[in-house]
């Protein structure tokens, strides 16, 4: 089992003819992902990696089986591209694009929700269910099938966590890149809920960072509702007040977004906090053996 994506997932790549879209389509196909179509307005009729390209999501859906969109579109057109996918009836959108204006993201999120669609991202590495489906930009070989769910605010940290678990022989059900922006389509608590319901997931690992209050809310959820162990690893302990640490959402000003609040919330909820990436594997193993 897994969450969000599996062997039944059929993908359209919006922005498939772009530099990154084309390369990542190649990597996803190599990983076994079933990409049935690509979309770039004005490029209908062409092919990328032998995947047929259409002018619109609607046209692609008329001819191909599709249930998920991954978007590699420029930030300036992310909102209209997401709206197009939702209007075509898709219920899962994975928005890889970085540097989207926050006001645009709030509208994309609200629109998707109003139509019963789920948005993952933006600024996400994507989602991978190892061995079954990879949608995004992560290096495939670091991920292996197994019992651990991963939720990460960062692409590179998700690779590190999966890679070190895989190295220890501990595989993953699904890894979801939550995204590093101040507003994301699907938040930490919602993703924990999905892993909670997935029988194959026995332990969940969460990478959190400074900024926002998702970790604080998750701590309360874990304490009150979660029936499987959650391990967290936090980054951003060494940060300069007011400076965004690479992610638009990773910033603190005074108490706002500060690390102390998050650590305190997790401690109060009794959630084990790994002190280093290396310690994540130790804590996960302990939780799996418990």
């Amino acid at each position, binding site marked *: 089992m897994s969450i969000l994506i599996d062997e039944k997932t059929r993908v359209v790549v919006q922005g498939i003819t772009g530099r*990154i879209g084309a390369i*990542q389509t190649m990597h996803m196909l190599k990983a076994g992902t079933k990409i049935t179509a690509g979309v770039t307005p004005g490029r209908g009729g062409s092919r990328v990696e032998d995947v047929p390209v259409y002018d619109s999501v609607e046209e692609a859906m008329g001819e191909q089986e599709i249930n998920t969109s991954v978007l590699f579109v420029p*930030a*300036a057109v992310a909102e209209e591209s997401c709206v197009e996918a939702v209007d075509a009836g898709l219920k899962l959108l994975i928005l890889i694009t970085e*540097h*989207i*204006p*926050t*006001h*645009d993201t*709030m*509208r994309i999120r*609200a629109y998707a929700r109003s139509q019963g669609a789920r948005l993952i991202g933006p600024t996400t*590495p994507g989602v991978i269910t190892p061995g079954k489906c990879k949608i995004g*930009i992560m*290096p495939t070989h*670091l991920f292996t099938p197994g019992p651990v769910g991963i939720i990460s*605010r960062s*692409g*590179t*940290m*998700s*690779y*590190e966590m999966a890679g*070190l678990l895989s190295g220890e022989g501990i595989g993953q059900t699904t890894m979801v890149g939550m995204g*590093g922006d*101040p*507003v*994301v*389509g699907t938040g930490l608590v919602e993703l924990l809920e999905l892993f909670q319901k997935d029988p194959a997931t026995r332990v969940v690992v969460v990478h959190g*960072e*400074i*900024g*926002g*209050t*998702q970790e*604080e809310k998750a701590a309360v959820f874990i304490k009150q509702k979660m029936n499987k162990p959650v391990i967290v*690893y936090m*980054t*951003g*302990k*060494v*940060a*300069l007040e*007011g*400076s*965004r*640490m*690479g*992610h*638009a959402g*990773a910033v603190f*000003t*005074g*108490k*706002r977004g500060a690390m102390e609040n998050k650590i305190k919330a997790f401690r109060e909820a009794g959630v084990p906090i790994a002190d*280093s*990436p*290396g*310690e994540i594997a130790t804590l996960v193993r302990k939780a799996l053996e418990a």
Partner: protein
Amino acid sequence: MILYEYEAKRLFREQGISIPQGEVAKSPSGAAEIAQKMGKPVVIKAQILALPGVEAGDARTAGSPEEAGRVAEGRLGKSYNRQRVSELLVEEGLPVQKEIHVAIRVDGTAGAPLVMASLERLSELDEEAKASPKVASVHSDPFHGLKSHEARKMAKSLGFTGDAAVKLGDQIHRIYKVYARWSALMAGFNPLVMTPEGNFSAAGAFLEMDDSALFRFPQFRELSLSRILDPLAREGKSIGVTYVGLEGDIGVICTGAGIGMATVDLISKRSRPANFLETGGGITEKQLAEVMRLVLKKPGLKGVFLNMYGGINPIHEGAKGVVKVVREDRVNIPVVAKAIGNFQEETWKVLEEGGVTVIKTIPTDQAVEELFKRLGK
């Protein structure tokens, strides 16, 4: 990008919000002249880039031009939040009947703007502020924005009635329009003043632009680079990476924000990183060479540590830029690189041939230990 208060006030005025009469002074005599011209008591505020909650120096009142000059002298050249004060906002002092604090912030969990108003200073923590019985708050609709009836309701729940409630609601509605018009991350009054005559004026104002939205506002995009105060951070921005200056002597280069934060956290356990640097996606040989030269600019570096993941990034291309600088600039401090992901074998080969110590295992803690060993720590 945070705006100076006087810049924020210009945007507020364009939206029909009344602001106190005032001017910017850069010298004590300038401040005295402005006070003289106004012919009434003035309020003097140091202008630094800061949001509420950050120490920025209190507003000071001056009853005469001479006093304005003295206050200005005491303020100019002082430092707050790592910034030297070079400008002062000199404004007419307003008679105050009531002060209303308003803030509009992005609520990440709700995915919507959170509008809050209170007769007291608002907590920087949304949860704490919202929970207070003295705060009126509402999440606005991301499509329709704050509606005028919602703004009036906020005014009424703060105890305003009749005409005053309509006027205050109008001010809250207008500041929301500023926030939406400029795709801001944060905007507010700290505070909005109601005078005994029942007029409202934005005595204090703040606004933070969203860096990701600046492509829509060329006038601010130009400005944003000059607003980065650390020259190395500014250079980083101009080559498309995030550089944050820290106080140590180990240079850090990472290909992602999460791994970058983890790396500086781990180095800090036993030593001190000189900087945080993350490239984001889309690195090239040329960019990594520029990044190496940028990090090496900090005097007194003892070593450089690279933590690279090949996901969206062609790290084998980046590696060529790294070794080019090691060779051409005769770098004589240890350069240690962990590189994992797509094209890792090619990357290792390039780095090793270029004299860089390569770490091929995943946990960053182990890689940092290797770095310490190389540095004799």
